[in-house]
Structures are given as C-alpha cells and as structure tokens.
C-alpha cells in the first residue's frame, strides 16, 4: 500500500468503516509509514475531544410537552387538532420573535423561565408521573408534612366547598428554589398551586395569563407569593384565586 492510499484510509479506519481485511492491510501499511501513523494519532485525538463533550439530554419541559401531545392525540382525536393549532401558533410566534431580533438565549426573560418551570411542574402533576408526595384532603395532614422539608410553613386550605378539593401536596423546584406545590382538582382537571413567602409586602390581585394552552395565575396575598397553573379556563383560575384568598384571610 502506498502512502496516499493509506492516508485516504485513516478516517474510514477510525470510523470503523473498513472491512477486517482492509483494516489488517491498513495496519500493516502503517508500520512502514510514520506520517500516516501521526495522522492517525491526530484523527484519534480530535475524535476523542468531540466524544468527551457532555451530552445534553432533552429537558423535562420538552419531554412533558411531547408526552402531553401524545396523550392528547391518543385520547381525544378532536381535541388534538385544536392543540396542534396552538402549537403551530406558538411556533409561528417564535418565528416572528426571531424576525424581530434574534437574541439567542436571552429570548426568554426571567418571567418566562419561571413560567416554564411552573408549567413543567404542573405537567408532572397532571400527567400522574408524580402527582403528590402526600395525598390527603386534610390540611392537618398536608401542612405538617412540609415541616422539615421546607424552610417555611405553607398555608394549606381545602377548597372543596368552592369546587376545588385538595388532593395533596408535593415539593418542586422553581427557579432553583424548593417550593411547596399544593394540588387541587377542578372537575376532571388538576390545578397546581406553588407558593413561597413574599419578599415584598402587600397584596396584589391575581393576574391570569395563558401560556402554551395553560392558564397561569400570579398573585400575592397574606405574605405569600402564589402561582397557579392548570388547563382550566382563565375565569375558573380567577375563582380559584378568590376562594383561596378568602380562606387565607379567614384563617388569620
């Protein structure tokens, strides 16, 4: 084998694309060709550098979104089309946003990162992968469960009389912080309420927005920040917030 031939085989050799016979020929040729040996070492080094790059697995939010699509498609063929439209609309809005000025990783601000985390948290609840850590409608069971698991005592209220029975509670991470998540039910829908101590004083009225087809309510009441996520209608989200505020006030 002459050098140009063996040189041309270096890549195929390290890529495992040569037959056993070709590999043996190549290895024999290498013995007499220091240049090609050097070339092979370099190619291996380069390959090694690329292969030690850490893999970045699919984020939980992406997995949850895909899972949700599959479930929707599998369970409700009509509904699916509506969802598809929403996703298409979202994709289109992303495209528009890109057109307006591509800011790369800064496309999402702090607020939407929190929303992403909240939606992901809600999806973990709604998809029953991990519904609750403590299942009870009894606040005297749920509230003590958080002792020793969180650095604050979350207010826990069953809102059955308002049409939102308490299913239980769990812990989740929102923006790197461990928070209490209370899970409520509204008819066939689940609602995840994340709450943590407010850093500023005063109450604020619930602000209900929609993201990815979910309703998200944000408000501050009785010294706590509340974030509720669900696939109920925005109006029902407001009822929930009102009912919760009333319960918090009655407790004081």
């Amino acid at each position, binding site marked *: 084998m002459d050098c140009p031939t063996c040189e041309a085989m270096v*890549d*195929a050799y390290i*890529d*495992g*694309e040569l037959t056993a016979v070709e590999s043996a020929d190549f290895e024999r040729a290498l013995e007499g060709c220091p240049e090609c040996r*050097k*070339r092979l*070492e*370099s*190619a*291996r*080094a*380069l*390959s090694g*550098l*690329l*292969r*030690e*790059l*850490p*893999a*970045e*697995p*699919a*984020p939980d*939010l*992406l*997995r949850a*979104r*895909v899972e949700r*699509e*599959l479930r929707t*498609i*599998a369970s409700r*063929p009509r509904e*699916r*089309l509506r969802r*598809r*439209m929403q*996703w*298409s609309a*979202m*994709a289109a809005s*992303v*495209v*528009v946003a*890109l*057109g*307006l000025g*591509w800011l*790369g*990783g800064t*496309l*999402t601000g702090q607020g939407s990162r929190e929303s992403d985390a909240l939606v992901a948290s809600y999806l973990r609840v709604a998809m029953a992968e991990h519904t609750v850590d403590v299942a009870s409608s009894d606040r005297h069971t749920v509230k003590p469960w958080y002792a020793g698991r969180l650095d604050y005592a979350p207010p826990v209220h069953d809102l059955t009389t308002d049409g939102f029975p308490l299913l239980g509670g769990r812990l989740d991470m929102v923006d790197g912080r461990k928070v209490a998540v209370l899970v409520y039910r509204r008819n066939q829908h689940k609602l995840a309420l994340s709450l943590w101590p407010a850093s500023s004083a005063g109450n604020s009225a619930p602000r209900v927005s929609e993201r990815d087809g979910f309703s998200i309510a944000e408000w501050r009441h009785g010294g706590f920040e509340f974030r509720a996520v669900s696939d109920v209608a925005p109006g029902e989200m407001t009822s929930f917030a009102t009912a919760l505020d009333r319960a918090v006030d009655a407790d004081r």
Partner: protein
Amino acid sequence: MSAMSEASKPDLATVERFRAVMLPHLDAAHGFARWLTRDPVQAQDVAQEAMLRALRYFHAFRGEEARPWLLRIVRNTWTDMRMKRGADQPLEAAENHPAEGPDPEQSALAGDRRRQVAAALAALPQEMREILVLREIEDLPYKQIAAVLDMPIGTVMSRLARARERLAIELRGRLGRREHGLPDL
C-alpha cells in the same frame, strides 16, 4: 406545518408504537437540534415539532433504524423553520450569530478544554457541524449519516474529512496542539 389530515390521523395503536419506537430517541433529537440551532429555546421547538412530524409520517416508517429516521426529520424541521425565518431575517445574519453549542459548563466535569471544543464545533458552518455531530456525538455509521443528510456515502466521506480538517484548525487556535496531539496541517 399544517394540521394532520383526517387520513393520516394516527390511531391509539400507532401512538403506542410510536411511543415505544421513537420516544427513546428524544434525547438524540434534542441533542442534534441543539447543535443545529445553537440555541436552547429553538432546539426545544425544533425537537418538539420534529416529534410531531415524525408521528404524522410514522405510517411511512418501515422499521429501519429509528434514530437516523428521526434525526432526518429534525434536520428537515430546522431547515423549514430557517426558511420561514429567512423571510424576516437574512440567513447570513443568522449564521453569523455568536455561536452557542450546548454549554459544557453544566457538566460537573466541565473544563476549559471542553468549552473550547464546544465553541470550535459551534463556530463551524452547518454542513461541517452537522456531519461531525452525527459521526462523533451520535456515533452513526457513514450509511446512516448519508440517510440523514440525504447524500451519497462518498460525499459523506469527503465532507467529513473537510470538517475534521477545519475543526482541527479551529482548535489549534484555541488549544495547545502538543498537549492534545492535534494535526499540524
């Protein structure tokens, strides 16, 4: 990206088969999208849209290797999204965007070297970047790379060789070549 037609609406059994066959490759789909887009937000959008397209066309899947089949759809999805974006923003500008690959800092074992390698790879033009990712990160054989990129195997080989050469040059500027044994081209 139109809604599925009635005819191709997947039934429950199809969805279940899709879940078993394709869903295990979501990490690969996202990883490839991450390197194509060089943007974490877009990577998720591309990967998700690609999964939905894959389901829509799953009836055309004939039991070949699932991962390259899905990766090809990821690439097509990204191409389409770029074209749509192209109406608002010239491709050139997008290509000159500060290149961001997956951030190796997120790994506990992160080092300056990995960051440099990731940056060098991200800085390559797409046709070089994608073939290196498919070969070295996805570990696909030439035949499957040819299927993903829709080109003859001979083209895969020549393009891969060029991409390696170019990456080595990029890296020599960033890393000490003696330490890492990179070619002195």
